[in-house]
C-alpha cells in the first residue's frame, strides 16, 4: 500500500470520492430527474465550475509545481472552446438550412447549401464565404482533435521559443500575457473569420440531439465535466507524484542546479507547458457548450490573470488547492455579479456588489498572499498537523 500510487497520494482517493458524491447528489437534485431543487441554469453553472477547476489544476501544475507563471492558459481554454464551437455552429446551421431548403421547388445544389450556411453564420460580419480556418468545421472528429492539438501546438511552439532563450520569471509572464493579448486581438478581427466580437453562439444546442431537453443535455455535460475533472486530477497527480514531479519542483526552486544534474530543463518545461495547455483546451471545449456563447473577450489577458488568482487563493503546489480556489472564487463571483447578493445600504452610499466584487476579490488576493501564502489549501496542512500532534 505504501508504494502504490494511491498510497503515496491519499488526496486522489479523497478527491475522487468527494467528486463522485457531489456528482450523484447534484444528479438526484436536477430537473432532468424531476426533482426541482437545482435549476437547469444552476446545473450549467456547476458544470462550468468543474471545467474551471480542471483548467485551474492545469495552471497549478505549470505554476505551482513547475514555477512558470503562465498568463496564457485561459487563452488555451478559449481556443478549445472555439474549436468545438465551430463544429457546433456549422453542424446546427447546416441542419437548419437543409431543412428550410427542402421545401424549395428546385432541389438545392451543394454550392447553394454551402452559401446558405455561410451567409447564416457570417451574415453578422457582412460576409458569406467560408474562411480557410473553417475548413475542418464539418467534421466533429477533426474539431475534437483541434481542441487538443491547436492549444498543444501553440504551446509547443511558443514554449520552445521562450524556454530555449531562457526567458524566466516575470519576463516569461509578460511574454505569455503578450501572446494572450495578441490572440484575443486576432480573434476580435472580422477578417480572422471567427465572427469578430460576436463570437460563436447557440453552442448549447447540440446537432443531432434536438430531441433531448436542455435539462437532460446539461446533466450530460455536467457528467462529462465531472469525469474530465476526475481524469485530469488523476493524470496530474500521477505526473507530479513521481520522479518527474520531483524534477519539475526542483526546476521551480533552482533551475540552474537541475541543469548541473544533467537534466535538460527546457524539455521539462516544454512538456509541462504543452500538456497543461492541452488539458486547458479540453476544459474549454466542455465549458463553452454549457455557457452557450464564446467571444474574444473570454480570452482577454484578464481571464488568465483571474486563473492565477484562483490558484493563489486556493493554494499553489497542491492540486486540491487549485480546485478549491477555482470553485469558491468562481461561484462567489457569479453570486456577487449575478445580482443575487444583497446590496448594502450605508445611508450615504449603496454598496452594489456588481461593482464592488472586484474590489473584494482584489483585497482577498492581497490578504491571502500576505498572510496565508499557502492559500485555502494550507488549512488542510494545519488539520493534518493537529492530527499528527494528538496521535
Amino acid at each position, binding site marked *: 500500500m505504501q508504494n502504490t500510487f494511491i498510497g503515496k497520494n491519499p488526496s486522489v482517493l479523497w478527491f475522487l470520492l468527494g467528486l463522485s458524491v457531489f456528482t450523484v447528489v447534484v444528479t438526484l437534485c436536477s430537473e432532468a430527474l424531476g426533482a426541482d431543487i437545482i435549476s437547469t441554469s444552476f446545473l450549467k453553472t456547476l458544470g462550468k465550475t468543474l471545467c474551471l477547476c480542471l483548467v485551474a489544476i492545469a495552471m497549478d501544475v505549470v505554476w505551482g509545481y513547475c514555477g512558470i507563471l503562465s498568463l496564457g492558459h485561459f487563452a488555451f481554454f478559449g481556443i478549445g472552446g472555439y474549436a468545438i464551437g465551430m463544429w457546433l455552429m456549422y453542424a446546427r446551421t447546416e441542419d437548419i438550412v437543409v431543412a428550410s431548403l427542402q421545401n424549395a421547388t428546385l432541389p438545392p445544389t451543394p454550392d447553394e447549401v454551402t452559401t446558405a450556411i455561410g451567409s447564416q453564420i457570417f451574415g453578422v460580419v457582412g460576409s458569406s464565404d467560408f474562411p480557410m480556418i473553417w475548413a475542418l468545421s464539418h467534421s466533429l472528429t477533426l474539431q475534437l482533435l483541434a481542441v487538443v492539438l491547436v492549444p498543444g501546438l501553440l504551446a509547443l511552439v511558443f514554449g520552445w521559443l521562450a524556454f530555449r532563450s531562457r526567458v524566466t520569471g516575470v519576463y516569461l509572464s509578460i511574454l505569455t500575457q503578450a501572446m494572450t493579448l495578441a490572440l484575443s486581438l486576432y480573434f476580435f478581427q472580422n477578417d480572422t473569420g471567427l465572427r469578430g466580437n460576436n463570437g460563436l453562439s447557440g453552442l448549447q444546442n447540440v446537432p443531432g440531439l434536438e430531441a433531448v431537453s436542455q435539462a437532460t443535455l446539461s446533466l450530460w455535460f455536467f457528467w462529462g465535466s465531472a469525469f474530465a475533472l476526475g481524469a485530469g486530477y488523476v493524470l496530474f497527480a500521477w*505526473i507530479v507524484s*513521481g*520522479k*518527474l514531479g*520531483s*524534477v519539475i*519542483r*526542483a526546476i521551480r*526552486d*533552482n533551475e*540552474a*542546479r537541475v*541543469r*548541473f*544534474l*544533467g*537534466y*535538460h*530543463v527546457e*524539455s*521539462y518545461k516544454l*512538456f509541462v507547458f504543452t500538456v497543461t495547455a492541452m488539458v486547458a483546451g479540453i476544459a474549454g471545449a466542455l465549458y463553452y457548450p454549457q455557457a452557450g456563447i464564446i467571444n474574444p473577450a473570454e480570452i482577454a489577458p484578464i481571464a488568465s490573470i483571474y486563473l492565477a488568482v484562483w490558484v493563489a487563493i486556493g493554494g499553489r503546489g497542491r492540486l486540491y488547492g487549485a480546485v478549491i480556489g477555482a470553485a469558491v472564487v468562481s461561484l462567489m463571483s457569479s453570486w456577487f455579479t449575478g445580482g443575487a447578493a444583497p446590496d448594502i445600504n450605508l445611508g450615504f452610499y449603496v454598496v452594489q456588489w456588481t461593482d464592488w466584487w472586484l474590489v473584494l476579490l482584489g483585497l482577498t488576493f492581497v490578504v491571502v498572499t500576505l498572510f496565508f501564502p499557502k492559500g485555502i489549501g494550507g488549512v488542510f496542512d494545519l488539520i493534518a498537523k493537529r492530527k499528527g500532534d494528538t496521535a
Partner: protein
Amino acid sequence: MSTLLEVSGVSVNFDGFKAINNLSIQIAEPEMRAVIGPNGAGKTTFMDIVTGKTKPDEGRVIWGEKSVSLLGMNESQIAQAGIGRKFQKPTVFEAQTVRENIVMALKNPRRPFDVLFKRGGNDAEDRVRAISDDIGLTGALDQTSGALSHGQKQWLEIGMLLAQDPRLLLVDEPAAGMSPAEREQTTDILVRAAKTRAVVVVEHDMEFVRRLNCKVTVLHQGSVLAEGSLDHVTKNKDVVDVYLGR
C-alpha cells in the same frame, strides 16, 4: 592514469576584466587534485567553464578518450557526459526529502518521458541506500532536506554528486562552515571517491588541503602560478608572495 580533462590556453573576459588568463590544467583519471588561490584567482570561473556555465573567449577544453570539446555542449549535456559539480553554497532542493534529492541525481535516463514512465528503476532503492550509507544520512532519508544541518546539506550534495556516478567531480569549498569532525568525514568521502574517479577540490583552507594529501595547483590572476605537492608549492617564492601579500 590517462588524461581525462585537458584545459589549454583558456581566457575569459568579464567586461575587460581578465578572470581567466591563458589557463592550462590537465586532470588524470583517477586523481585527486586541489586547486587553491586567493579570492578572485579564477577558481570558480574555472569550474564554470568546465561545466558549461561560462563560455571562454579563447582556448580549448577537451574531455575523455575521444577528445570531445566541451565548449559546444550545454550544462546538461556536460553533466551527462560525466562531470558533476558541487557548489560553494550547499544547493540541495530544500523542499524535498533527502531520498528525492538522491533519486533525482541517480544516473538514469534523463529525458522527460523516460523519467515519467520509468520511475527510478528497480535497483534505485539499493543505490540510494549505498549512497546514504556513504554520506552518513541513511537515518534522514525521509526527512525534508531543508531541515538538515549545514554540514549534512554539504554531504547530501556530495552524495548527489556520487549518485550521478561522474568520472570527474568538481567540488567547490566542501569544508566551508564545517566542524573539525565533519571536515574529517568529508575528507574521507572525497578520498574514497578519488580512488576510482577524478576529483578536483577548490579550497581556501590549507589544513584541509594538507589532509587530502594530493597534487596542488595554485591559481593567481586567472592562470597557474605553481603546481606540485603542497610542500613544494608552499616553498615557492611566488606563492608565498601572493598569499602573504608581499
